[in-house]
């Protein structure tokens, strides 16, 4: 202990020493400068230092692909909930707030509608960033051209689905830098179609036939989608011209086994023109592109799987589709092989996943026809292993089988049932060992034949509702056949359910936005 006594030394000196010791200690410990308050975010990238290098260009482009396969994108919402489940080929059981879209009970506040809308618009926004920023980056010009081509393709693809599913949409073609850039009215559909076609033409010329990585957009993909855009806008000649490049070209071939289009082991096969690449991640998260480690698996499987093999009540195939398959036999008198790849019903030896059909269902459920297409029957249910978001059965967004039928359809509309139209149709049927269609059909009869063939070839692949819509028959089909929604009792309302509601948030927050009729 210090024996220094305050009385023996001048008091002020003692105090001065003590005080200065304290102050010295404190000044060492204190950084009084205001600079201490400048704490930049050490975890994330500032936008101001991006878009400088070729690497930035690649990353910005990858981000544009990002939304395609998330659960909000084609992983689930666009993969089934907002697309397949709306078709008259399937008949979903009700699952409140899960498939209100499919049972025509959807409201503008539906979260799942907003999710699909959000991911498609994210593609547009990110493509706009690429298209605005990449041209000024100093980099390899060949690759730069391709990057821009891929961005054009993706923007057109997103606009295509936005337009056809929601009817009228805002058309934004520049990066969003301020709130005012978003507060715009919806564009006339023709304007959007013009943008889609213009983007696809640029994509077509910019893109190579062989992509840098499997899964990237190619000139073939741009051509096929451009043809589809012309088909949807009834520009038959232009559609025919584009499809012809694919149909007559040698880049794509029908795979001998129809089922190879819906199986993970035969991903990216010769028939595939643009295919979404799923990723097996057992440990991902539910979340849109931009969240860490989102699931990018085939998460829609439980939405279409049979009852008992899903966390929902399941989805059946409508009886008329089954009847259509059974009506016409193959060249060897057998059932169309596409039927077995598309549906599962109580036929001898039928199996649901690993189980015998007769043991898989109770009572009246045995009489139902269930979905088979895109299901991974090598597993024990739609939920294995461990989670429903694992499967990597890629979504073939555009495949040659479809293009051939679109070509036949466009050709017939443009010039009647020409030999080229017949040839395309019969190519599709031949792969399924189905006999050629009857020669000498009228234009109307051929049209019907193509539409029938589209059911046999494309059931439960997601475009059925859009087909009915562009043919103008959707209201008729659903309102006249209540049985199409017998599982849920859902009722289609004409002049409403043709299009999905614009998400309520976007109507509320953008005064220039008009809600779709009926919502």
């Amino acid at each position, binding site marked *: 202990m210090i024996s220094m006594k305050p009385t023996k030394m001048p008091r002020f000196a003692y105090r001065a020493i003590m005080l200065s010791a304290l102050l010295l200690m404190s000044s060492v410990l204190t950084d009084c400068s205001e600079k201490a308050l400048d704490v930049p975010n050490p975890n994330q990238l500032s936008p101001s230092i991006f878009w400088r290098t070729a690497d930035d260009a690649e990353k910005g482009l990858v981000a544009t692909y990002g939304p395609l396969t998330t659960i909000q994108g084609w992983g689930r919402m666009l993969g089934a909930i907002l697309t397949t489940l709306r078709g008259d080929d399937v008949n979903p059981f009700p699952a409140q707030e899960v498939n209100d879209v499919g049972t025509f009970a959807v409201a503008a506040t539906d979260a799942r509608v907003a999710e699909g809308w959000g991911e498609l618009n994210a593609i547009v926004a990110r493509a706009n960033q690429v298209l605005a920023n990449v041209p000024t980056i100093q980099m390899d010009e060949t690759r730069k051209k391709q990057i821009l081509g891929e961005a054009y393709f993706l923007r057109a693809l997103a606009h295509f689905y936005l337009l056809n599913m929601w009817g009228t949409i805002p058309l934004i073609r520049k990066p969003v830098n301020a709130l005012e850039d978003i507060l715009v009215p919806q564009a006339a559909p023709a304007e959007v179609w013009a943008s889609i076609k213009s983007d696809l033409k640029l994509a077509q010329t910019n893109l190579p036939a062989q992509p840098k990585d499997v899964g990237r957009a190619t000139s073939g993909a741009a051509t096929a989608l451009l043809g589809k855009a012309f088909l949807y806008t009834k520009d038959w000649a232009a559609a025919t011209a584009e499809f012809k490049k694919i149909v007559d070209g040698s880049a794509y071939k029908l795979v001998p086994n129809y089922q190879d289009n819906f199986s993970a082991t035969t991903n990216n096969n010769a028939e595939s023109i643009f295919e979404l690449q799923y990723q097996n991640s057992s440990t991902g998260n539910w979340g849109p592109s931009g969240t860490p480690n989102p699931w990018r698996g085939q998460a829609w499987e439980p939405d279409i799987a049979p009852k008992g093999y899903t966390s929902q009540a399941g989805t059946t195939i409508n009886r008329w589709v089954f009847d259509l398959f059974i009506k016409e036999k193959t060249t060897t008198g057998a059932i169309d092989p596409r039927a077995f790849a598309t549906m599962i019903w109580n036929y001898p030896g039928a199996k649901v996943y690993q189980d015998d059909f007769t043991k898989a269902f109770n009572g009246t459920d045995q009489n139902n026809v269930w979905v088979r297409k895109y299901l991974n029957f090598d597993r024990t249910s739609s939920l*294995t292993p461990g989670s429903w978001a694992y499967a990597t059965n890629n979504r073939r967004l555009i495949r040659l089988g479809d293009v051939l039928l679109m070509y036949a359809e466009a050709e017939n509309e443009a010039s009647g049932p020409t030999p080229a139209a017949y040839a395309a149709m019969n190519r599709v049927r031949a792969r399924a060992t189905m006999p050629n269609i009857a020669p000498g059909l009228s234009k109307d009869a051929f049209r019907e034949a193509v539409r029938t063939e589209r059911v046999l070839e494309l059931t439960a692949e997601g475009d059925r509702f859009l087909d009915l819509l562009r043919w103008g028959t959707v209201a008729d089909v659903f309102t006249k056949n209540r049985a199409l929604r017998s599982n849920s009792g859902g009722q289609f309302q004409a002049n409403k359910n043709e299009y999905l509601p614009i998400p309520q948030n976007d109507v509320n927050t953008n005064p220039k936005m008009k809600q779709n009729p009926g919502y």
Partner: protein
Amino acid sequence: MKSFTPSRRQLRWVMTVSLVQITLLIALMSAALARPGKANAQELLARRVSLSVTHKPIKTVLSQLSRLTTARFTYSSTVIRADRPVSLVVVNQPLSTVLDQLLKPLSLSYQATDQEIVLIRTTAGSAIPTPETGSQVLPDPANRAVTVSGTVLDEKGGGLPGVTVLVKGTSQGTVTDPQGKYTLSVPGPDATLVFSFVGYLPQEVRVGSQSTVNITLAPNDKILEEVVVVGYGTQRRANVTGAIGSIKTSDINNITTANASALIQGKVAGVRVENAGGAPGAGVNVIVRGTGTFGNDQPLYVIDGNITTSMDFLNPNDIAGIEILKDASAAAIYGNRAANGVVLVTTKQGGTGATKINFSTKVGIQGPTDRLKFMNARQYADYINQAADNDKQPRALANTTAFDPNVDTDWQKLAIGSAAPVQDYSLNLSGGNDNAKFYISGQYFDQKGIVVNSGFKRYNLRANSTFTKGRFRLSEALALSRAVNTPNVWWGRERGEIPTIPVFNPKNDGGFAGIDPVFNGLPRGINWYGLSFLNENRQTNDQMLGSVGAEYEIIDGLRYKLNLGLDYTVGNAFSYLPTFFFSTSQEAFNNISRLDEVNVRGLGTLVEHTLNYGKTVGKHTVDVLAGYTQQVNEFRSLGATGADFPTNSLRVIDASTVRVNATGDIQRNVLQSILGRINYNYAGKYLLSATVRRDGSSRFAPQNRFGTFPSVSAGWRISEESFFPKNSILSDAKLRGSYGVLGSQNIGNYVTTSVLNINASYFFAGGVQPGTALTNFANPNVVWETSKTTDIGTDLSFLNGTFTVVMDYYDRRSEGILTNLPIPTFGGVGSSIVKNAATIRNQGFEFAGTYNHRPGSNGLKYSVTGNLSSIRNRVLALGEGVSPINGGGFTQESLQATRTDVGQPVGSFYGFVVDGVYNTQDQITADGRTNVRPGDFRYKDLNNDGKLNNDDRTYLGSPIPKFEYGAIFNATYRGFDLSLFVQGVQGNKIWNANKFKHLLDFGGDKLIAGTRAWTPANTNTDIPRATLSDPANNRRASSFYVENGSYLRLKSMQFGYTLPVAFVKKMQLSGARVYVQGQNLLTATRYTGYDPEIGRGGSPSQAAGLFGAGVDVGIYPQARSVFAGIDIAF
């Protein structure tokens, strides 16, 4: 003390007079220390004492002597000049000798009575008090000096010795002798005598023509002498002008909890404490005067001067007191973090004297307060068959042909069936002398949850000490703690088990049975009970909270203090999910074992310089505080996920064959502040306080960084006024008022700058490629939220402090509350931007009262303290374009229970109003409803448009109680003590989502209420028909779920017995007490769920957070518990 020679065994003392002490004119500083002992004067004076003090005021020395001997000293500070410093060293001397040594050189002597030792000033050779003539008083020639004598009596009529009798306006006076008598010469008949004595109310008497003035002094209200801890200092309760609620140690110990903040519940008016269910170690929400934000509404915690965010880790036995700063005046010194109130916690310090050792232990058993009534297997099968028939679906085999009468599993009983033990061991050592004091404690607390596979353990170590040398003082508080929480995260999951499956199936991986989707007819459902055994969850939190304060008194009254704080935390969250198989149902199997582990390290440093100056000149007393502080908090996290382990027994990342994920981030913020406060009081009558703090926060953009938070308050002690009637029932009265502006910067770090998102990757065949995109807009203009509070209050004391009342009315307006302004999503930059837009108003009335029964001759002593508060919480504005906030998701399909909108309380329940059940198709047709059948809910068409749609929803009540109250009753009688604590809330609603989960949802076991479901044969019912597909959407958010949440609860009852001193002495102890305690013993409530204490705990995925308050998604039930304990002092 080397300058003293102990070998001489002789008392030596050194007296050093410091600067001339400023003598108070009237205020008498005196001490009445330690309770009067039973010992007589001789005994007292013979007690032996050892003591060593250097340069300490006499009063301090006397107080130490008092503590050592239980003698009670009575004196007038003015007369004996009690501030004079003295030094003294004695070793094992009788008190009489010590007093002689101490007092003689000071010209003081003493007289001992039975209970007291009265100090008096010595005149040559005389022990009789004589008047002391103040030199500054010149006798007025007009007045002739007169001699006045008399007796001062206490409230019981006995003579009161040691009372200071002063001539008002002079220092001329005397003290009463042991019989209470005095004699004094006064200047003339106009003179006024002031009688004052500690613990009694001072009295003034004009002499007039009397020569004998006898008076009776009334005891003072004890609360007024209380010292209250305020921000950066302490204040006498009497001078406090802000709204501060205090909790004493004695009221803390009546609850046994893992979480110290739960101790506050029911004890302070206007402070709502929500237990998030009864899980051991679960979080507790503390809401001071209502929610005034949509973000974090939790108060700031200051523990021994260390500013932090939680007190959960504290050992409750270490807490010396808790003060809650409720209004702006009290809290403003904490500036932009004080908007939600401030909780100040002071931990125990050592006293002087012999080292004390206390050991306490208690053990207890807990069980649930209530259970739900579920269907048995047969009832369940019948109900589900009914549903299948209604849905026109085939009946499941398990419920029909394959029904197994041998299987009837009561899952509830398994999950919360067995009694859960609690153990609590606590040891502390304290002691010291005038120069150094210490308090060291340790605790081990182990609580098993009443839900299977849940538990909590905590280890605490604390060392507090203070050192003094002359004008220098060093204090230190260090707390180390480890908390290990092993929660059952699967409790309360919807779509749970059904009674028709067995618990075990040895054939399955993991050994538990599960639901077969086909056989049981349920697509989803799992054996959560089994999973809770397999899934290992453990959160370990280590914390070190320490502070060192160095204080130096530069000149008298001017003190500089450097306070250094350190808050170091290390947390580990561990979750291992082994492979298992129950069935093919979703989540009922896991093929890939998985380990998630996250480590977080946090370091907070606090540097504070404060300068404090206090001075009294005449009747003016000023206390000034100025300070500069800087606080830096940084958290760094690192986490990894590994999958596919070779065996389930290897549970570290290194053993995983797939390294799935790695995460990590840094969260850092800096706060620099200057602060100042002036407390002024005039004659203890008029009180004024002004506070300002200016904060600079790194969380905001440079142009918005600095904010100033001022407050002002005033008080008026009416009872000090001369016109205030003496000896009225109302013995003390104070009016207070305050206004101030506070801030809340609880908004997270880095929110004002836009960032690029690097998580926008895509998988190309060949591998994942990284993607970068702008995915949101930041708002650089975001600033702190502000809250403006007006408070009017009064402190009243009746019957000389027998009954005290504190009342407050407040109006708190929180402005610039951060809300999410929604923006169109099609811009691809998110769905909202953050904006300071909303306004919330909280108004409330608070009442707190205490009744202290004065012990009578029978020895019965008791007190009752209670509080009551009301609150009105309203959202006044959300901001232009901001939509109502929906929350409280109570289903996996995210049906939501609450809505927050203008004109309503935060988180109000919202939905349709059920108007019975349809009995006929005609009723349905008349209402124009489709997909509805008899037996489905009928809802009110509130807007009478003939349609049922979302416009027919309305507000169904609020989870915020209209009233809350708590009361504590303490009594002692001959060694026995009893403590009762009741607590309750009134006027709130609870959203009982158990009704969804166990009735309307398609999976899980069903409540017995389902047996009353509507059937064509049973139409007089409020339970809808059984259906699993629910086409009419009966499960939508509606009044069906809303129940009255009021409750009154006997929160705690403790009955103890203190063993007789003679008995414990034989056991070489200095004290021992045994007790039994019960918690949550009785509850009066009409709520039909497990327990009405819902809080906002929610479940990991549902109803958690502010907007899920009061939504019961199967909250972990509160425990009813019984403890037995023993406290031993060595």
